[in-house]
Structure formats: C-alpha cells, structure tokens
C-alpha cells in the first residue's frame, strides 16, 4: 500500500477516535478494526506489539484510575448502577490501546525511507524529510558511541548507574564526539556536492488500488462518525 494512503487513513481514524465523547465505550471496538488490519497486513507478531504497548500504557492508566472517584454521578447499566467515571476511565484506556496499537503497527509497516517518501508526497517541508533520513542514518552510529562510553565507564569499576556529575561528563564527551562526527560528515557531504537537501527517489505513482484502499477506510470512518450505528445501544452515554 502507498505510504501516503496509509498515513492519511491512520490520521483520519485517529481524528475520528479523538472526536468520540469521553464516556464512549461501546462505540470504540469498531475502531480497533484498523490496527487489526495493519497487524494482518504487516504480519506483525502480537507479542511484540503487546510488549511495546505495556511501555506506553502506564501514564494513561494513571490518568484513568481516578476517574470513578471524580465523576460519581450514577448511571444505569444492564448490571446495575455505576459511577459515570468508570465509563470515562474505560474509554480513556480503550482509546489509548487503539491509538497506540495503530501507531505501533504503522511503524512496523513503514520504515523511515518509505515514511519520508510518504511525508514528502503529502507536502511536508523537504528540510524536515532530509532531517529524518539523516537522523535514521546516524542514530545507530551514535548509539554505538554511547554504548562504548558506557562500557568504558563500567570497565573502570563503576557499578550501577553513574552519578549526575559523571553522567554529565560522559554526555559532554558524547556531545563532543557527535559534533566532531557531524562536522566531518558535513564537510564530506559538501565536497560531494551536497546542497542542503538529500535527493529523493521519485515516489511511486498513487495507484487505483491505493485510492480504493484509502476511500474504503475513509468511508468506514465516515460511517462510524456520521451514522453513529451504536447510538441507543446499552452502555452508550450521550
């Protein structure tokens, strides 16, 4: 699928999801269809997705937990009355799980070059796309540098994490080496005729299949937002 279509469909879904009322619970599951289809499309292992989700969820959990104590207004449910806050909390967590899994699945499907191509196709400033590609290229290199500095500190009989002063010295060394490397790369690129923007391969044309894909998801989102098929169902609070 064309990266532009993927990005636009994801954004449409996230906007629709954000437009749901803060008590919406029953109307959320259909939105999960989008991340699920991404998982199938990219053949993503659910275990990996789950592990990365666990890292992202705690903050939302902290925000969701006090909700039942704050919104104590009683509302009827098929299982008896409960506080409105339970809906707010559940809705927050539900929306979090869907949004985070969509972003994670998207990141597994799109690598940075394809993402950059998609962004450029959507009119993102060229400077930012160049910046993204350069960031991707030197991320691992500098990561190695950091690992070496950390290793050196450990070898000098340092147990555990360093204190602030030592960490600052290590960071300053890393910053110095990064600037050093950046300057060498910059000079080398200038000598090879770099004009400030990386040349990008032409974007593959937007095919009919991509248009159908995008139209399909936009239609799906429009149905969820405009028709509200779950209105009047039990547990949906206006």
């Amino acid at each position, binding site marked *: 699928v064309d990266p532009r279509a993927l990005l636009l469909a994801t954004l449409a879904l*996230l*906007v629709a999801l*954000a*437009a749901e009322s*803060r008590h919406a619970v029953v109307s959320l599951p259909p939105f999960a269809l989008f991340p699920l289809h991404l998982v199938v499309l990219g053949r993503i292992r659910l275990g990996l997705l789950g592990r*990365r*989700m666990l890292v992202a969820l705690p903050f*939302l959990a902290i*925000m969701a937990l006090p909700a039942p104590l*704050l*919104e104590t207004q009683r509302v009827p449910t098929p299982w008896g009355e409960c506080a409105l806050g339970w809906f*707010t909390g559940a809705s*927050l*967590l539900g*929306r*979090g799980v869907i*949004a*985070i899994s969509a*972003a994670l699945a998207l*990141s597994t499907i799109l690598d*940075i070059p394809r993402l950059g191509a998609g962004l450029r196709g959507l009119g993102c*400033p*060229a*400077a*930012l796309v*160049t*910046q993204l590609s*350069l*960031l991707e290229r030197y*991320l691992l290199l*500098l*990561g190695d540098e*950091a*690992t070496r500095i*950390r290793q050196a500190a450990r070898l000098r009989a340092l147990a555990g*994490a*360093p*204190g*602030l*002063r*030592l960490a*600052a*010295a*290590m*960071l*300053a060394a*890393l*910053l*110095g*080496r*990064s*600037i050093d490397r*950046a*300057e060498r*790369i*910059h000079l080398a*690129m*200038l000598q090879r005729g770099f*004009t*400030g923007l990386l040349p990008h391969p032409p974007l593959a044309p937007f095919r009919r299949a991509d248009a159908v894909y995008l139209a399909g998801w936009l239609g799906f989102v429009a149905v969820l937002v405009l028709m509200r098929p779950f209105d009047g169902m039990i547990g949906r609070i206006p």
Partner: protein
Amino acid sequence: MHMSDALISPAVGGGFWVVSTGAIVYAATRLRKESPAGAPAIAGVLAGFVFAAQMINFAVPGTGSSGHLGGGMLLAIVLGPWAGLIAVASVLMVQALFFADGGLLALGCNIFNLGVIPSLLVAPLLPVLSASGRDSQQPGLAGGVGAWFALMIGAFMVTIQTLLSEKTALPFSLFATAMLGIHAAIGVVEGVVTALVVAYVARGRVAEMRHPWRRRHGLASCRRAASIPVLPGEGPTAPRLAAVFMVIAIMLGTTVSWFASTQPDGLEWAIERIHGEAELAADEAGIAARLGRLQERASFLPDYAFPASAEEESGAESWPVVDAGRSLSGLSGALITISLVFVVAGLLMRRRPIAPTA
C-alpha cells in the same frame, strides 16, 4: 511528558498541528536562508545524539531510581533556535511513529511543548541570562535554568491542552498542581545535567572542541556550543520575541480564565473545612478591613468577572465559564504582568549593560 492521542480532542490536536507546522515551515525557511547547505547534516547527526544520550542512564540522587536526559534544550543551545526546532521535531516524529511515545494526532502538541517552547521561546532568552560575560559558569547556569523553565512551561501546556480537550474529568487545579509539581522535580535533574554538560563544553573540557582549527574556523554550531547563542542576527529579535510572548499571554489570559475554577480553591476549601464558613469573618474595624475596602476599590474586576454578571443571577454555573468578563480580566492581568516585566527588565538592563561576547 508526551501527550497521548487518547487525551486530546480533534480541535486541540488540529490547532496545535497548524501552529507547530507553521513554526517548522518558518524555521526551515530561516535555516535555508541563513546556512544554505550547512545546518542539515549537523542537525541530523545531533538529533541522533538525543537518542544516544538517552542510553546513558544516571542515578537520580535521593530517589534510588535512574533517569536520562530529555535533551531538547541542549539541542536548542547547541544548534540555535531554527535548526534546534527542526531537530527536536524530527526526534519527536521518530518517537511518535516508531516508539509510540506520544500520539500522531498529539504530535502537534508535543512539537509545540517540547520543541517550539525550548527552541523559539526559551533559547533566545539565554544570552540575556548568560550575558554577564565569558565566565564559564554562566553559560552552564543559563542552560540549566532554561532547561528547567522550558520543562515547566511545557508541562503547563500539557495541562491546558488536556483540559481544553475535555477527555478527563480531572479538575484544573489538581492536574496543574500534580503536573507542575512532578515536573519541577524532573526539571531540576534535567537542568543540573544540562548545566553541567554546557559548562563542560564551555570550559573547553571536551577534547573535540579544543582543536585550534575548530576554534578558528569551526562552524557556528560549535561556537554556539561554547558560548550559547550570542551571534547577532540569530534567533528572533527582542521586539519580535516580545510580540510572541504578548500573543501567548493574551491567548492564555482570554481562554484559560474560563477554566479558572468556579469551585473554592484548595486554600478556601481548607478554611471552609476548618471554620465551617467560606471566609473568615473580617475584623470590621481593624486595619485588615480598611485594606480590604481599599483593595475592593482598587481592583477593577474583583473575582475575575464583571460585577453582577449573568451567571450569578442564573444560579447554576457551568464549567468552563465562557464569559467576556473573565476574558477581559485574564487579558488585563496578562497585559499588566507583561508591562511589569518590561519595566523591571528595563531597570535591570540599564544597571548592567550586556557585554558583547561574540
């Protein structure tokens, strides 16, 4: 401090997307004009530095836990405002798209809170902070204080964005207190580490920066790293900066005042609990009463609203209270504060002129 997609509404997310996109496009144009081929490679590699720096964990004193540098302010200091903003934005995009750290719809908010605020609002103020000269302690101190302020303003913006989105029922005062309290502590650690790193570089303790060739011909980024941006013509000029602050203060003053709680605040609540009545009975004849009457006469919008506004008559109040009186109070409060700041700053600057350091 990354905002999540689950917490924002389309209007807030979209609004900040527009603002942040505008800032990035402007920064990209400025960058291309100032250094046609220079900055991108350096900014790209140094954006990678932020990720690498986060691999170096340090022990946070007194807590038994470990933390890592956020690095936004450090990037802004080393790269200057324009390249700094673009570098931070790219870091946040990678974090949002590849680590689900902050959402896609929330990306605009995150770029504003963590990129625009340190790069375009706080970094240009640092030369003033470190103005007194070439003493190597000064740039570090300025960088540290800047990092703390940038984090606090960012945390406050997170509170505002969350509450404007109305996806949680947390009351403004509680959420703001929690966010600012936690980030005040985090900010101290971030500030201290930033200050130490900048001081190390400025003191010439980093071997890579001591190279004589680099001292003479080094790129602007290295000079900046050693002395914090003080080159003329870089960053917004003072009047423009003042205009930016004015717009933000006016926006905050007019909109945030709607959210000023109609419930008693913490102190009033505590007094009510202790004394069983909302306000302590004022001493009718004492000096406090006289001061109170004076204050009543002097304050032209007591309790943030026009006297006897509609809400008092209707009895039931809704929150947020969209009210012209409150907006005007907020607006005039902001304007008065800004004028005061300018007067004080003017007095301070006349006493100690800024020494050119470049």
